[in-house]
């Protein structure tokens, strides 16, 4: 596959891993946070941790839009599905996320009309094809996905499609990174920056991380060579005592981002003054809502939602794992009460959450089971 296989080339990967081992100062312990859940997934899927020397620790950041969605919001979305006239649409990622009374798949098993879509455009298509029903699209994702929702809403408005609404749960990445950096027990040395969010927002929004916080950040692609090369670039900066924004993912990301995407977002969305992030609390100006021009397509205005806040049990230590203070396996609930099948906290809910990824891909490597003779 072009643009994929070249970046999985074994010899180059070995070479880059070798360079990392050469560059890493054995007297130093490096903590690098990959912000985006897609990177967490890539790191585990390609077994990249095993290629790094033991003194480079990868800390998994909060960039998983499914994980950080509070359970109350899932309940709100599902409450709309209770209306028999509504077709509830969402990405596959949402389907197993537990609400207070079950996940969307479980609601579907009980008769709700819940359908997986690959694209918000498919949800709009459903609305066109079913004029007698109302199609609600449960929108999630960071800035990577928000422009697609925006374009879809612009299309709905232009075509006068009234039986369509969006339940907007788009969140923005910069406030999340800021929250990580502001926390007093923060111990991150450098950041592997979100590659696909950056195709939209560009690299400029990260400059304050380098300038004011003094942390290097490299915007990275998702193939093994991309992540490894980003680690090389971060090590070089750390070695030289530098802190800059660098773009490793040049074949896709441009410094200024995608103007058309930003324009579409500005046309449709407004910033909420605050939004709750599961495992991180309330963060100001960190999420999007439909603006007044699109009020007619705003599911929160069309439907009256319970809006009840559901908190995670105190025993769930998601916040500490998110900031890198604890490793997933160190949370008391990990693997016992909290598993991917029965997630208690945010990071177990989706396969790219730090705890779920670790559980699914890694931790059994370390469990040596004694075999009776």
């Amino acid at each position, binding site marked *: 596959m072009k643009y994929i296989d070249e970046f999985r080339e074994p010899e180059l990967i070995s070479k880059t891993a070798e360079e990392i081992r050469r560059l890493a100062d054995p007297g130093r312990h490096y903590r690098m946070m990959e912000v985006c859940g897609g990177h967490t997934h890539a790191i585990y899927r390609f077994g990249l941790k095993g290629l790094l020397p033991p003194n480079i620790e990868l800390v998994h950041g909060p960039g998983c839009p499914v994980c950080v969605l509070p359970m109350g919001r899932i309940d709100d979305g599902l409450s709309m599905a209770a209306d028999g006239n509504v077709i509830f649409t969402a990405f596959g990622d949402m389907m197993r996320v537990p609400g207070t009374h079950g996940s969307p798949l479980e609601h579907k098993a009980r008769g709700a009309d819940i359908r997986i879509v690959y694209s918000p455009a498919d949800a709009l298509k459903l609305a066109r094809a079913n004029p007698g029903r109302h199609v609600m699209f449960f929108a999630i994702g960071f800035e990577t*996905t928000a*422009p697609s929702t925006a374009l879809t809403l612009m299309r709905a408005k232009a075509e006068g499609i009234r039986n369509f609404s969006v339940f907007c749960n788009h969140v923005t990445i910069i406030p999340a990174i800021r929250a990580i950096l502001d926390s007093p027990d923060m111990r991150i040395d450098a950041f592997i920056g979100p590659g696909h969010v950056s195709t939209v927002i560009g690299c400029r929004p990260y400059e304050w991380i380098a300038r004011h916080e003094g942390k290097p950040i490299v915007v990275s692609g998702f193939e093994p060579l991309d992540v490894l*090369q980003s680690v090389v*670039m971060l090590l070089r900066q750390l070695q030289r005592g530098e802190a800059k924004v660098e773009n490793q993912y*040049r074949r896709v*990301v441009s410094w200024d981002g995608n103007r058309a995407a930003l324009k579409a977002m500005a046309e449709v969305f407004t910033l909420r003054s605050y939004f709750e992030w599961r495992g991180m609390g309330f963060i100001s100006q960190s999420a999007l809502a439909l603006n007044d021009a699109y009020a007619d397509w705003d599911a929160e205005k069309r439907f009256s939602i319970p809006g009840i806040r559901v908190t995670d049990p105190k025993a769930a230590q998601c916040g500490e794992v998110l900031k890198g203070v604890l490793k997933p396996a160190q949370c008391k609930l990990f693997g016992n009460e909290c598993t991917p099948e029965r997630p208690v906290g945010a990071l177990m809910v989706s396969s790219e959450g730090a705890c779920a990824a670790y559980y699914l891909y890694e931790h059994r490597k370390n469990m040596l089971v004694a075999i009776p003779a």
Partner: protein
Amino acid sequence: MCLAIPGKIISLGDDPAHSALIDVVGVRRRVDVSLVEPDGIGPGDWVLIHVGFAMSKLREQDAIDQLRMLTVLGETEAAMEEVRGYSADVDDPQPKEHSSP
């Protein structure tokens, strides 16, 4: 948020407007290309696809440059300096803007 994949444009379409037929090793789908049309796209171009929308036009030269940089890892500093002269400067925080063909 992050699952996006490169695909090749086979043809541009009128129905629906702003759409293109893309191919990913033999799998074909219509995607919305509104976000990359300003860059100028046509059949044969590669774009990054996320939830049925093209997000960015892939720049082959940057891919080649990146791979070349990795190929020479581990060689002498002098050789690396030479390579840096050819490709976009790694140490420059304001990389040169690549004009789209």
